[in-house]
């Protein structure tokens, strides 16, 4: 579980996050949604420690991440997996080497054991026969799957996904969404997904958090989001013609 308590963040005295307090639950796919520029990426970067919150606390389990120094944070970071918008695979390494990298860096596993674990993770994300390919030889969807395999290779307790299906065609986007949801339940991890894709919300949103102009505006489930009376959230949810037609 991750607790966010009264988090504030500003850039050039311009507040981007205003007093955000919420909880991300274990074994659930927690979605942060909001318009571009609403502050959801900044919130995620604060969660993983790429940015420091000006005020407030971020607590992993019982450990106050905000109060930790570099060395202490490294212990928690080994329990984090992250899927970046552009996958962020290491260009100089093959698919297998990318997946094995966290294992090589943080475990004492033998080469054979690492290869077996990498093969298991690649199998889990339904990627076959791509072991020796370079990232430049992969499609967008394959890159995302390799990034998920790399993220789960070290058995993380927390999985963060920043716009996991941006730039993907609808069937591949749904495939990635379902994969994230399945992995969350299977490994009982705390997953936080940053998205503005309503398909993702309806597919996998166990808990949905709506951020509006840097403020926590609404919290609920994917079933409740369609029936809320919140004007700003409705504007976001029913922004597309498809959703408006479905509503009617």
């Amino acid at each position, binding site marked *: 579980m991750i607790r966010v308590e009264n988090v504030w963040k500003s850039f050039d005295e311009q507040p981007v996050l205003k007093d955000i307090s919420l909880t991300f639950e274990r074994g659930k796919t927690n979605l942060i949604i909001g318009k571009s520029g609403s502050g959801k990426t900044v919130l995620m970067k604060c969660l*993983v*420690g*790429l940015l420091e919150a000006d005020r407030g606390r971020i607590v992993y389990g019982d450990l106050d991440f905000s109060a930790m120094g*570099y060395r202490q*944070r*490294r*212990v928690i*970071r*080994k329990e*984090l997996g*992250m899927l*970046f*918008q*552009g996958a*962020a*695979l*290491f*260009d100089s390494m093959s698919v297998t080497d990318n997946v094995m*990298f*966290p294992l*090589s*860096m*943080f475990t004492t596993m033998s080469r054979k054991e690492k290869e077996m674990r990498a093969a298991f993770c690649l199998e889990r994300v339904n990627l076959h026969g791509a072991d020796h390919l370079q990232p430049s030889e992969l499609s967008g969807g394959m890159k995302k799957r390799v990034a998920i395999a790399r993220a789960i290779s*070290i058995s993380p307790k927390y999985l*963060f996904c920043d716009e996991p299906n941006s730039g993907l065609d609808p069937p591949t986007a749904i495939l990635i969404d379902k994969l994230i949801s399945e992995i969350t339940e299977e490994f009982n991890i705390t997953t936080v997904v940053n998205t503005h894709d309503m398909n993702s919300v309806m597919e996998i949103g166990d808990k949905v958090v709506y951020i509006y102009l840097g403020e926590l505006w609404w919290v609920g489930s994917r079933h409740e989001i369609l029936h809320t009376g919140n004007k700003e959230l409705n504007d976001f949810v029913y922004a597309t013609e498809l959703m408006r037609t479905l509503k009617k």
Partner: protein
Amino acid sequence: MGILLRRPEKASMYRRKIVVEMDLLGLESLGIVAIISVFMGAVVTIQTAFNTDHPLLPIYAVGFATRQAIILEFSPTIISLILAGKVGSRIASEIGTMRITEQIDALEIMGVNAAGYLILPKIIASMIINPALVVISIFLGIFGGWMVSAATGVVSLHNYIYGILFEFSSYDVMYAIIKTVVFAFIIASVSGYFGFYTRGSALEVGNASTKAVVFSSIYIILFNLILTQLLLI
């Protein structure tokens, strides 16, 4: 610098990366170093032969001057400047691209000291491999002079070799190696710095690469003056 020297997460991963970097930054530069050294040695010999054509100067002075020019300045300084262009731009653009494609963020989130893992092995590899390149450059430069002497007869081979061996001091080679180690540190650390702190888009990677080459070259020239003053005078 403090970030670079943090304790490595796994020493064996860093050692392996140093070997890889020695290949990428050093051995892949061997070709250009060899070509430039042979031709520069040949040109220095011809230039010296034409400019020391005086009855009071012994003919072996051509070999002597060629050796001194190559050991003291050409190989350590000019080769380092060439490496600043080739290796410096490579380091800055590689790390800069990793920054803008979030690969560095991925390392940080895993708990890897990205600056240490990406820059420190390059610095150590450069400080090991560049002196080796410079020693090879010295031999090839002198060989270039010998080759042009044999081909054109600007100086007899006997006089050229006598001049090469005349009053040879091993300290001169040591001086060249010390300078090269310092220059190698400058090239890898300055380029690593500009790459690591790249912000924005692909355009910024180009800017970082240019800045890396320009600043590395300026620091090399500056430290060349300081080290010459400290080590030779």
